[in-house]
């Protein structure tokens, strides 16, 4: 529940970032709202980017006709398959628009009912982190759409908790259900599901990186991952293990297991990640180190971080 003081903290919409949720029932309702949002932006000379599913992209292109030429479209099921890569997508859009000297707005739909439970949790974490990433920055507007008809109630509740503004019939208004203290995985007591007893497990230290890679290569190959995907999975796990060695106390534990459609790797150590946006900022060329989580996010289908004082777990998922 957001009290008056918290309402005041939702800063002046004219001069700051607006993170709005659109809860819609059915494609027609989405279409009407999205077209109005896009056309408003175009009328104001703004750059517009729309990152939604293929079907919605086709619908919008059809309706916009020639006007679609000035809109950037991205297939969210592709660019946002791993929700942790969505913030950098918007960051780059923001930078491009600023470079063009134009304000901007975007529509994104990161959550869809076919997503796994774990991915939907990370979508919610992503939405909370959008507020962290953009809240104190330049003025722009991001509208996130959620299909109330097909998404579970807890996903809709998560949407309500993570968006300071809610779009309704009469225009967007401050959202009383917004929880400004929620920063995704950081400080949350939302643990990962337990790994099964059938898992393979090994401890590692500084001198065993290549042993770890061999074990992961063997496991992932036997689990039926294609060769290029095995290489990506091994790279990601290697990055997590390297982080444990470098930042997490010098050693840790690796677990490997499978779900029907997925190979999973999980690295635990006694370190602590305190940056909520770790792995979600594109590394600068001159940056020294700090690329491990970014790399894991690029190659894996899902990356989940849970970290507090003295304990970090990073779990990566690779679809088979």
């Amino acid at each position, binding site marked *: 529940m957001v009290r008056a003081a918290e309402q005041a903290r939702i800063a002046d919409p004219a001069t700051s970032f607006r993170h709005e949720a659109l809860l819609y029932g059915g494609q027609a309702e989405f279409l009407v709202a999205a077209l109005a949002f896009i056309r408003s932006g175009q009328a104001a000379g703004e750059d517009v980017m729309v990152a939604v599913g293929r079907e919605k992209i086709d619908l919008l292109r059809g309706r916009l006709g020639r006007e679609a030429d000035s809109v950037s479209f991205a297939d969210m099921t592709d660019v946002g398959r791993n929700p942790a890569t969505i913030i950098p997508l918007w960051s780059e859009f923001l930078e491009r628009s600023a470079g063009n000297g134009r304000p901007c707005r975007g529509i994104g739909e990161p959550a869809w009912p076919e997503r796994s439970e774990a991915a939907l949790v990370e979508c919610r974490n992503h939405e909370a982190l959008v507020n962290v990433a953009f809240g104190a920055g330049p003025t722009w507007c991001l509208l996130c759409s959620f299909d109330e008809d097909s998404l579970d109630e807890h996903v809709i509740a998560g949407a309500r908790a993570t968006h300071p503004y809610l779009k309704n019939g009469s225009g967007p208004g401050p959202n009383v259900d917004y929880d400004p203290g929620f920063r995704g995985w950081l400080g949350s007591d939302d643990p990962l599901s337990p790994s099964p007893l059938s898992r393979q497990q090994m401890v590692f230290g*500084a*001198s065993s*990186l*290549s*042993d770890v*890679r*061999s074990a992961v290569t063997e496991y992932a190959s036997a689990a039926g991952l294609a060769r290029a995907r095995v*290489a990506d999975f*091994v*790279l990601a796990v*290697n*990055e997590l293990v*390297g982080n444990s*060695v*470098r930042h997490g106390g010098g050693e840790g534990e690796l677990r490997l297991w499978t779900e029907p459609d997925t190979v999973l790797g999980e690295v635990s150590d006694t370190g602590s990640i305190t940056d909520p946006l770790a792995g979600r900022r*594109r*590394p600068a*060329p001159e940056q*020294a*180190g700090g*690329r*491990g989580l*970014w*790399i894991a996010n*690029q*190659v894996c289908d899902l990356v989940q971080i849970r970290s507090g004082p003295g304990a970090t777990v990073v779990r990566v998922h690779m679809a088979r």
Partner: protein
Amino acid sequence: MKPAEGELEIESEGGVVTVRGDLDMETVGQLTQALDEVSGTVVLVLDGLSFVDSSGLQGILNAQRAAQERGDELVLRRPSDALIRVLEMTDLRASFVIET
């Protein structure tokens, strides 16, 4: 001849440094050491680089900076697929002189 699993093999001759095997946190020190002894423009021959991670990448970045600081260049010759992949996903491909 490929190096043993997890190992890095370096041959250095007149500014041309051939690197084969795995370049990671454990082995990157060997590369740094080998390049310390090279002056002038450095050509890293990398088609035999079977594995490279962010630590290995940092080693290559450091080598480039060291070369540039003394007024020279670093060239990546025939980077392996593994290296290209990591360069592209970290937006560094355009930062290097690459020779095929």
